[in-house]
C-alpha cells in the first residue's frame, strides 16, 4: 500500500489537476482491487467502468467536506448503481471521509463497515443508501426540488447504470425533473453496454437513448466516460443561472476498463479472481491509464 498518495486535505481542498486525477483514478482501481481481494470476489467490471466518473466528481467537481459530511450546501451524490460501491468507498477514503483501514475488512465478516452496497447507516458522506436499482433518480429529484425550495446553490448528482434504465421508475423521475426545471440535477449514465445477462440493448433496447432523454425535456451531453478532462468540463454545471433543464450525461464507458482481460467481458460484471489474475491486474494498474 506504499504506492498511494496521501488523502487530500479538505481544509482548503484544491481540485486535482489532470495528471493528479489520472493518478487518483489509478489509486481508485487499486483500492477496489484490494477490497475485492479481501472479499475474494466482486463487481470488477461495474466498478472499473465508472472509475473516472467518480474521480472527476470527488476530486474536481463536487463541493464536499469530510470534516462536516452533513454540511447543508454540499453537493449531493447518489450512487444508484450501488453494486459498484467500492469505487465510492475509495473516493470517500481518499477524500478523508472514511479510514483507509476499512479497505482490507471489506465484506470479510458481518458487522464490518464496508459492504457490497453503500449504506448511510455505516458510512459518513453517503447521501443515500443503495442496492435496489431504479431508486436513485427519484430520490435525487426529491433532493433537487428541496434545494430549489431552499434556494441553495448546491447540485445533486445521480450515477445510474445503463442497464438500470430498464427500470420504469427511472422514467417516472425523468418526466418529473423537467417539470420542476431542475437544472441543479445531473444524471450520469454509465453506458458500459453490459448487464448481468448480456448486451444491455439486446436484453431490452435503450436506443435511441439520447433522443429518449431529450424527448423527456432534458439537456443531453455525450462524453467519453474515461476522459477525465471531458468529464470535469461537462459535470461542472453552473450553480446559478442554469439552463432551466436537468442534464443527463451519457458517459460512454468500457466495462472492466483498465484491466485488459476484464474489458467488455460480461462475466466480469461479478466474478471470483485468481491470485494470478490479481497479480496481472496490479501489473496493468501500476501506471495511470493513458
Amino acid at each position, binding site marked *: 500500500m506504499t504506492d498511494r498518495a496521501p488523502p487530500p486535505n479538505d481544509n482548503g481542498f484544491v481540485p486535482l489537476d489532470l495528471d493528479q486525477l489520472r493518478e487518483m483514478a489509478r489509486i481508485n482501481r487499486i483500492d477496489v482491487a484490494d477490497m475485492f481481494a479481501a472479499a475474494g470476489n466482486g463487481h470488477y467490471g461495474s466498478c472499473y467502468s465508472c472509475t473516472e466518473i467518480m474521480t472527476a466528481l470527488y476530486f474536481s467537481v463536487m463541493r464536499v467536506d469530510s470534516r462536516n459530511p452533513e454540511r447543508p450546501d454540499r453537493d449531493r451524490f447518489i450512487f444508484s448503481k450501488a453494486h459498484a460501491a467500492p469505487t465510492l468507498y475509495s473516493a470517500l477514503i481518499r477524500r478523508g471521509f472514511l479510514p483507509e483501514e476499512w479497505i482490507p475488512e471489506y465484506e470479510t465478516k458481518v458487522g464490518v463497515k464496508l459492504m457490497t452496497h453503500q449504506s*448511510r*447507516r455505516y458510512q459518513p458522506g453517503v*447521501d*443515500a*443508501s443503495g*442496492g*435496489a436499482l*431504479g*431508486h436513485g*433518480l*427519484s*430520490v*435525487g*429529484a*426529491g*433532493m*433537487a*426540488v*428541496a*434545494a430549489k*425550495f*431552499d434556494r441553495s446553490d448546491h447540485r445533486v448528482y445521480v450515477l445510474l447504470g445503463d442497464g438500470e434504465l430498464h427500470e*420504469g*421508475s427511472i422514467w*417516472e*423521475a425523468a*418526466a*418529473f425533473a423537467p417539470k420542476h426545471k431542475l437544472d441543479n440535477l445531473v444524471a450520469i449514465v454509465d453506458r458500459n453496454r453490459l448487464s448481468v445477462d448480456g448486451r444491455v440493448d439486446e436484453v431490452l433496447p435503450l436506443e435511441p437513448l439520447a433522443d429518449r432523454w431529450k424527448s423527456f425535456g432534458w439537456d443531453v451531453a455525450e462524453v467519453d466516460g474515461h476522459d477525465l478532462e471531458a468529464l470535469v468540463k461537462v459535470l461542472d454545471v453552473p450553480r446559478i443561472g442554469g439552463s432551466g433543464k436537468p442534464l443527463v450525461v451519457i458517459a460512454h464507458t468500457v466495462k472492466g476498463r483498465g484491466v485488459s482481460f476484464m474489458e467488455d467481458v460480461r462475466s466480469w460484471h461479478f466474478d471470483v479472481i485468481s491470485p494470478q489474475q490479481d497479480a496481472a491486474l496490479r501489473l496493468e494498474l501500476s501506471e495511470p491509464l493513458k
Partner: protein
Amino acid sequence: MKPAAPPPTGKPRLTTSAMIASIAGEGQKTKPAPFGHALVEVAKTRPDVLGMTADLGKYTDLHIFGQAFPDRYYQMGMAEQLLFGAASGLAAEGFTPFATTYAVFATRRAYDFIHQTIAEEDRNVKIVCALPGLTSGYGPSHQAAEDLALMRAMPNMTVIDPCDAHEIEQVVPAIAAHRGPVYMRLLRGQVPVVLDEYGYTFELGRAKTLRGGDDVLIISSGIMTMRALDAAEELKADRIGAAVLHVPTIKPLDTETILREAGKTGRMVVVAENHTVVGGLGEAVAGLLLRSGVYPAFRQIGLPDEFLAAGALPTLHDRYGISTAAVVSRIKEWLSR
C-alpha cells in the same frame, strides 16, 4: 334529456361507486375531509410539512392542503415509485412530506421504494393511504385487504389504523410530531364521528378501552372499532357484556394494555379488523398472547384469505363478515357453543 327516474320506494339501490366516497352509515354524524383540514392546521406552524400525491389529491383529501399551501403541494402524477422516492429525497433535506395515494398503490406497487428509500433509511415520510382494507367496492385492484400485513412487516415503520374523523384529527398532528416513517390508513370524504362520545384521545402507540364488559373482549382497529361499539350495544339485548379495546396503532403494538385486558379471566377474546386474517392485528395479537403465555378463548373477525368480490360496500361487509350484524351474530354463535 329526461331527468333520471326517482328511485323506487324504500331504500335506494346501493351501487359500487357510491361507496367510494364515504363509509358513513345513513344518518350518521360525519365531518368532511378531516385529514385535509387537520394537515392544514399542522402546516400553519410547521413550514417543513409538504403534501405530495400521485394524482389522487382529491380522493385523499389532500387537495384541501393544496389549496391552502399551493407552493408546498407536489403533484407527482400517476407515478408511485417517484412519489415515495422523491418523498425520501425531500425528507433527507429536512422536509416532512405527507405522501398520499390509494393503499393498494403504496403497499403493493411501490413497496420496494417505501422499504428501501424510506423505511431502511428511516426517512421522516408520512404515507397516508385511502381505501384501506375493504373500503372500496371496485374489487381486488382497489381493495387493500393486506396493507397492514405488508406495512407491519417493514422495520422502522409505524402503522396507524384510525377509526373515525375525531381520531384522524388527532393522529395527523401526532404523526407530524413523531420522527420517523409512518403508514396511516385514511378515511376520506364524509367521515363518521364516533369516538368523541367516548371522551377518547389518541396517543401514538396506545390502545384504549372504550367500554367494559364481562363476556367478550373485542380488540379492534379502524372502522371495526365503530362496528364493535355498535355490536356491543346490540349484544346488550342478549345480556352479553362486550368490552371494546381500540388499538389504532398496529405497530408498535401496545402489548402491555392488550395483555392486561386479554389476561382478565372469563372473557373470550375476539380480534376484529378490516383486513385479511393473514398478518394483521388478529395474528399480531394471537402471537403476542401465545408468546406471553396468555391463553383466552380466541377468535378472529377479518376478511377471508381470498380475492374479494366487487359490489356495493355494505353488501360486501355483510358477505365477508365485517358488518355490525355479522359481528353480532358471530359473537353470539361463538358464545353459545
